[in-house]
Structures are given as structure tokens and as C-alpha cells.
């Protein structure tokens, strides 16, 4: 039944391509142009596109199945009534970097603000300029369908208070500029960890197992271990393999990638300049290897004990 998602991918691809083509004509100015590159580095924000469900690209409404219930993404086109058309620059920055809506309510962390918090303001604002250069789409947001206590709005505030700290990305002077660029992309903009890092029971990223693979990625997908562990991670991939994969979606054994990863490559990472792909590869190679077989069947209490449950 998960397969139903893929039926929409082709339609999504066509619609987004059309949308981007239309937008690039309009997005003459530099900020919007740069913003498009930032949006691509963020994977194209395809989670906000529910073409399969009849919604326009980036107009929200796509169901994101998580262990905490089903969340619906929001309309991020510049429609003033149903989208973000009335948002000021500072409201947009606050949403992205602090997880707070213009009316002050906290977002659920399905919106990856805990990663976007690392983004620089200039990148966030360029992204806004680009989004505002797109055609507005009128589409009401749909309420989430989560289980208590995650269905309570107050839960999002509580969660944010307990697990979130705004933290801008700080380059490590001991590392190369290439490594720092890779770290910035992976940790903040491209938010790889949101899918590839296992979560603790309350749904926070388990930073002790950073990028070590998650059995419960968005939409119930399984996101493999990206640390250089030879057995359970991508320890046998060369940097060239990683960069090529992020550009083409092709695995070193010739197989193709599927589902969400295919989407974020097609609408996002695949358009990054080669230097950025190499930077991401350099960063991934530098991670401490973590043994975690995300492919192993679900155990009880998915949040811990993979190492011992072999």
C-alpha cells in the first residue's frame, strides 16, 4: 500500500518541472535565483507537494506518516489567504530557524526546524525570495491526524521547550572549508539527519547515533545508515560513489534508489554543484562509524538497542 506513493512521483516530477520552469522565467533577480539553489540543497521541499492528492507543488496537504500519527504539510506558496504570502522576512526566518509560526504557536518537529535552525539568515531569506517568486496556489491547510498527546497543540510547544535549542551552524576552524561546507549542508540545509538519524521515544533525533539509519523515516520509509560502518553503513562507498549517488540516485551496485530519496535527489540534491556533492561526501566519510542495521526487522522499542539486538 506504501506503493501508492510512487504512483504520484511521475506526476509530481512533471508538475514541479513545469512550476520551476515557469518560476525561473519570473525569478529574474539574484536573491530568488540563489534561493532556488538553496531550496534544491534542501531537497526541493517535496514534502510540501501533494500532487498525488491533487494539490499543486508546494501547496501542502501531503500526508507524512510518522510513528506519532499522520501530519499534513502546509501550503508554502505565496497565496495570502492559505499560504505564506503575508509573512514578513522575520516571520519566515523565525519559522525556519525557531519553529514558531507567525501567531506564535510551535510547529511539530515533522517540520525539520531542528535542522534548519543551523541555516544562515541569508540562505533562509534567499529561499523566501524564491518561494515568493512562484505562483500562489489557493489551498487550505489540513489539520494533523496524530495520536494524543501528539495531537495536542500544546504538545508541540512542550516538545520544543524540552528538546529544541536554536543553534546556528558554527564552522569548525580545525577542519577544511570543504568539510565545513559539507557539515553545513548535511546538518542544516539538506537535513539528511531528519530521515537518516534514529529517533528517541519522544521523537527527538538521537544524536548519539547521528545518521546511523532509521527504521521509521517519514512515510514509514526505511532510511539506511550513512555512517562509514563497513557492515551496516556505507563504509565501502567511495566519496565518488556518494557524490554520484546524490546526483543520479544510482547506488554503487547499479541499483536505483526509491521513494523519498529519489524525490529529494530529483528535485533537490541532484542539482547541487559537484563541489557541494564532494563536500557532503567528505563530511560523511569523516563521521564516526556506528553499527546499526536499519534493515533489521522492527524490534520492540525501536528507539534503542539495535547494537545488542543483532
Amino acid at each position, binding site marked *: 500500500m506504501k506503493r501508492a506513493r510512487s*504512483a504520484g512521483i511521475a506526476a509530481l516530477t512533471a508538475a514541479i518541472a513545469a512550476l520551476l520552469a515557469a518560476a525561473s522565467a519570473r525569478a529574474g533577480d539574484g536573491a530568488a535565483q540563489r534561493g532556488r539553489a538553496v531550496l534544491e540543497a534542501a531537497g526541493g521541499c517535496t514534502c510540501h507537494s501533494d500532487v498525488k492528492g491533487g494539490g499543486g507543488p508546494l501547496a501542502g496537504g501531503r500526508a507524512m506518516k510518522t510513528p506519532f500519527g499522520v501530519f499534513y504539510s502546509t501550503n508554502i506558496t505565496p497565496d495570502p489567504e492559505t499560504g505564506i504570502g503575508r509573512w514578513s522576512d522575520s516571520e519566515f526566518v523565525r519559522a525556519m530557524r525557531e519553529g514558531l509560526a507567525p501567531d506564535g504557536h510551535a510547529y511539530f518537529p515533522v517540520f525539520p526546524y531542528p535542522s534548519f535552525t543551523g541555516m544562515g539568515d541569508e540562505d533562509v531569506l534567499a529561499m523566501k525570495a524564491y518561494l515568493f517568486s512562484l505562483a500562489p496556489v489557493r489551498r487550505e491547510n489540513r489539520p494533523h491526524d496524530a495520536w494524543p498527546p501528539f495531537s495536542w497543540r500544546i504538545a508541540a510547544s512542550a516538545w520544543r521547550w524540552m528538546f529544541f535549542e536554536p543553534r546556528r551552524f558554527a564552522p569548525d576552524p580545525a577542519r577544511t572549508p570543504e568539510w565545513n561546507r559539507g557539515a553545513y549542508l548535511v546538518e542544516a540545509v539538506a537535513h539528511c539527519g531528519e530521515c537518516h538519524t534514529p529517533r528517541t521515544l519522544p521523537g527527538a533525533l538521537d544524536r548519539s547515533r547521528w545518521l546511523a539509519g532509521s527504521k521509521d523515516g517519514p512515510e514509514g520509509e526505511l532510511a539506511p545508515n550513512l555512517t562509514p560502518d563497513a557492515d551496516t553503513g556505507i563504509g565501502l562507498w567511495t566519496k565518488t560513489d556518494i557524490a554520484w549517488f546524490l546526483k543520479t540516485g544510482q547506488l554503487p551496485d*547499479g541499483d536505483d534508489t526509491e521513494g523519498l530519496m529519489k524525490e529529494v535527489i530529483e528535485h533537490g540534491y541532484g542539482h547541487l554543484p559537484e563541489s557541494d556533492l564532494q563536500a557532503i561526501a567528505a563530511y560523511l566519510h569523516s563521521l564516526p562509524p556506528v553499527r546499526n542495521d536499519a534493515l533489521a526487522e522492527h524490534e520492540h522499542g525501536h528507539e534503542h538497542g539495535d547494537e545488542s539486538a543483532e
Partner: protein
Amino acid sequence: MHSIRIALTTGIAAALLVTAIGVAGAASAQDAAKADEGAIKYRQSLMESVGGDMASISNIMKYGLPLTGNLVVHAESLAAHAKLVSTAFERKVTAGQTDAEPAIWAKADEFKEKTKAFETETAKLVEVAKTSDPAALGVQMKATGKACGGCHDNFRKPKEESFKRKGGGGE
């Protein structure tokens, strides 16, 4: 005495016959199971072959190897293997160590379309490989990859449901 002998002989003959039928039945069930297993193994190794050629082309491209003359061979191999896909899935086997979706046989027309698309894209790949134009090759490799994904999307189980996950043969 004579009638007893006849009865005995008949009885033994009957018993032998029953046993023979039983053995034959068991043997044919065993044959069927083996043929099913073989069908799965074959289609998977066929997929590994096309994966191998895709990987070889990609390795030449991504490392910029001076082996561009080999590209045509790999492309031709892909095109030849693509023609085998439809026969590899003729036998309907949905149980066992397989990631094939039952939709392959339930939506046979759609599956056939995907097989055709794969044949078409790999045939184009052969033509492009002959021109030694790297940009065009990149574009056509992408199209070929889409032909793989276009079929896998609906006809191959996703990782979450794969038989390869430890402890599970799926549903």
C-alpha cells in the same frame, strides 16, 4: 489357494500402484516448488546482471576512465538483457524469497509497458554509447535509470517490505 494367490498379487500390485502414484505426486509437487524457486533466483540474477552493466557504465563515467570503448559493450549487454525480462517473469511466483509484487501478474499490461519502456531506453542507450558524447550519455543513463525505477515503483517491494530484512520473509 489359487484365488488367494491372485488376491495377494492383485493387492501387492495395487499397493505398488498407489505408492507409485504417491511418489509421482510428491515428485511433481517437489518439481513445482523447485521450478518456483528457480524462477525467483533467475529473475533476481537477471536483475543483478543489468545492475552490473549499469554500475560498469557509471564507474567509467564517474571516474572518467579511459575505457569509453567499453561503453557500447555494456549498453548492448543491457539492451540484450532487457529483452529477457518479460520471459523471466512469465511464471507467476509470489511466495518465497522474493520482492516481486503480485501486481506483476494482476496488472500484466502495465508490467508489459514497463518492460517495453526498458527495452526502448536501453536500445537508445546503445545508439548514444556509439556517439561517445558524454553529456548525451549522461542524459540517456538518467532515462534508463528512470526505466528501472518506473518498474520498481509499483512492481518491486520497497526496502521496508523486502524479504532481505532479517527475520522476515515479508507478509
